[in-house]
């Protein structure tokens, strides 16, 4: 009897152990799929709803039917919106602002990050922390002082800064530069010190070390920063709402809301179409840059 029990015990023990790692992995995989699908549903629902609504007429949107189905699909919203000069102006303003802000930010933050990460000058550590701290101040706290500063500049020089789309090119970097600099400091700091020393001995100056070694090696970080920067400058709502008012000076997020909502009349079809079209450029940029986002580019530089 004792022997039999012992045998059963061993057999069961063996059965549990056999393939348990593979089974554990499988279970973990199922759970990850479950949560991934949950997240995908949660986050895709708004754009899908936007897309569906953009294909409906105002009458169908107002009618009591299944909101997740289009009974009479139409492209009228797209045609109307794209034939409006106003919408194209918003688009142009947004594009100019985003491209300029990305350029300004990347130049400033790459140079700043390089000097903060590599040239150990007096106070560089404190400056690096300072850069990060400025990022922690919310923009909703910044726009009132910024108004004051603009008024001050106006009094001093006579230059009117309020209600011009291009003023956003000066405003957005207050949000993007600190964060991008912080990201880049981290990336640059992870590049082995011997790499710049080797370049230094090979005859490179600091600018050449930056352009020919650091930027290519830290490309994944630079792309991450660029994506962040583009998203912020494309989608920011508060600053353009506060600082621009004329229709020809508006950027897309504010333009859509202010021109397509008239009083309490919401032109839902066009709002959704505008939002969808507005979301397209970041999507395209993500898709394009992701191809170049090659992680682990430093592999092989030093002893792995």
């Amino acid at each position, binding site marked *: 009897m004792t022997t039999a029990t012992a045998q059963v015990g061993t057999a069961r023990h063996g059965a549990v152990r056999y393939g348990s790692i593979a089974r554990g992995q499988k279970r973990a995989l199922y759970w990850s799929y479950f949560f991934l699908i949950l997240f995908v549903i949660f986050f895709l629902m708004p754009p899908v709803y936007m897309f569906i609504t953009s294909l409906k007429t105002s009458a169908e949107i107002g009618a009591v039917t299944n909101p997740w189905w289009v009974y009479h699909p139409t492209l009228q919203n797209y045609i109307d919106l794209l034939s409006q000069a106003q919408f194209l102006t918003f688009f142009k303003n947004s594009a100019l602002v985003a491209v300029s802000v990305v350029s300004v930010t990347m130049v400033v933050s790459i140079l700043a990050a390089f000097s903060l990460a590599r040239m150990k000058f007096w106070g560089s550590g404190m400056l690096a922390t300072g850069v990060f701290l400025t990022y922690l101040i919310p923009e909703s706290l910044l726009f009132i002082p910024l108004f004051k500063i603009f008024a001050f500049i106006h009094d001093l020089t006579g230059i009117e800064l309020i209600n011009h789309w291009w003023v956003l090119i000066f405003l957005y970097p207050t949000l993007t530069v600190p964060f991008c600099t912080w990201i880049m400091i981290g990336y640059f700091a992870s590049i*082995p010190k*011997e*790499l710049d*020393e*080797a*370049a*230094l*001995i*090979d*005859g*490179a*100056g600091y600018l*050449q070390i930056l352009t*020919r*070694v650091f930027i*290519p*090696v830290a*490309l994944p970080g630079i792309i991450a920063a660029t994506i962040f920067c583009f998203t912020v400058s494309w989608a920011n709502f508060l600053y353009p709402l506060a600082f621009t008012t004329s229709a020809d000076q508006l950027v897309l997020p504010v333009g859509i809301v202010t021109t397509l909502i008239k009083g309490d009349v919401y032109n839902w079809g066009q709002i959704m179409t505008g939002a969808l079209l507005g979301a397209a450029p970041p999507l395209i940029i993500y898709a394009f840059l992701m191809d170049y986002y090659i992680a682990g*580019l*430093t*592999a*092989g*530089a*030093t*002893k*792995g």
Partner: protein
Amino acid sequence: MAEVALRNIVKTFDRTPAVAGIDLDISDREFVVLVGPSGCGKTTTLRMIAGLEEATSGEIYIGDQLVNDVPPKDRDIAMVFQNYALYPHMTVYENMSFGLRLKKFPKPEIKERVENAARILDITDLLGRRPKQLSGGQRQRVAMGRAIVRNPKVFLFDEPLSNLDAKLRVQMRTEIKKVHQKVTTTTVYVTHDQIEAMTLADRVVVMNGGKIEQIGTPNDVYHHPKTRFVAGFIGSPAMNFIPCRLVDGNGTAGLSVKLSDKLSFPVPEARVARYRPQAGRDLLFGLRPEDVIEKRGELPPGRATFEAQLDVVEPMGMETMVYFVVDGTEVCGRVNPAAAGKAGETMPLVADLNHMHLIDPKTDQVL
């Protein structure tokens, strides 16, 4: 091609001295190895020659030029780093030609130089690859190639082999020696491995605590160490040190070294005059393991026989290490495997006193 001269070089980091006054003259085409334990200041010295660290005081000359304030790129030196420091985004060809491209050399010349260096290092097939596609040894070759193509006045090597496995290290050591024989550029090589130092160097500079302990040819530092540190650091297994008393036998008996109550060795004739003034003092007796051997027939002059009870016996193949205790100190001998006894047995051994050293324990100087 150039000489390198260091004049009273001092380097302190936050008041902690890393290099405490070094004088060193390296002749043209010479291969000098700086060797010492971690933190002895050897790498700092090399980095000061490279211009990557500024000397706190003293003068560094490359050729006839005082280079203290000359930036690294204008010193005409090339450096090979411990962890290779290859540019990961460039191919081997681009890595090797980077310095030349920065100096705007004509393309055909760059090509010729890179191909020439690649031939010397046998990496012609790898020129199109990126560093991550290379093995450790190949990366090290590329790093050396990057140095060779520049045809600099001085090569600087900073522990270039310490990241490689033991077998590859031996192989690359030979490669480096071969390359130096072909290119004959003045070379300063830093290592903590005394075997690397012995095998590569024209002259070895043994450093300890930020100072130079001894400069000499490999044979010189091995056979005629000037300090206890050098005697103990160079050679593997390390030299045996046994506390002793130098006894003057008065008259005919001559000098003898008393290691314990039971064990005394006569000082060879040739050394008597040198050691006589120290008679009666407590000193440190130093003898390398290869000078403690098995007994073979007639005893030539200067050798003394004794019996030792073996504690540990380590067969190494071509020789066997035997360990025994003399008055509380463990002593290592190197004997013929056929003659080696077993642990616990008593074995007749011979000490070759012609190679003995006596060290003053107060000054750590070899007498």
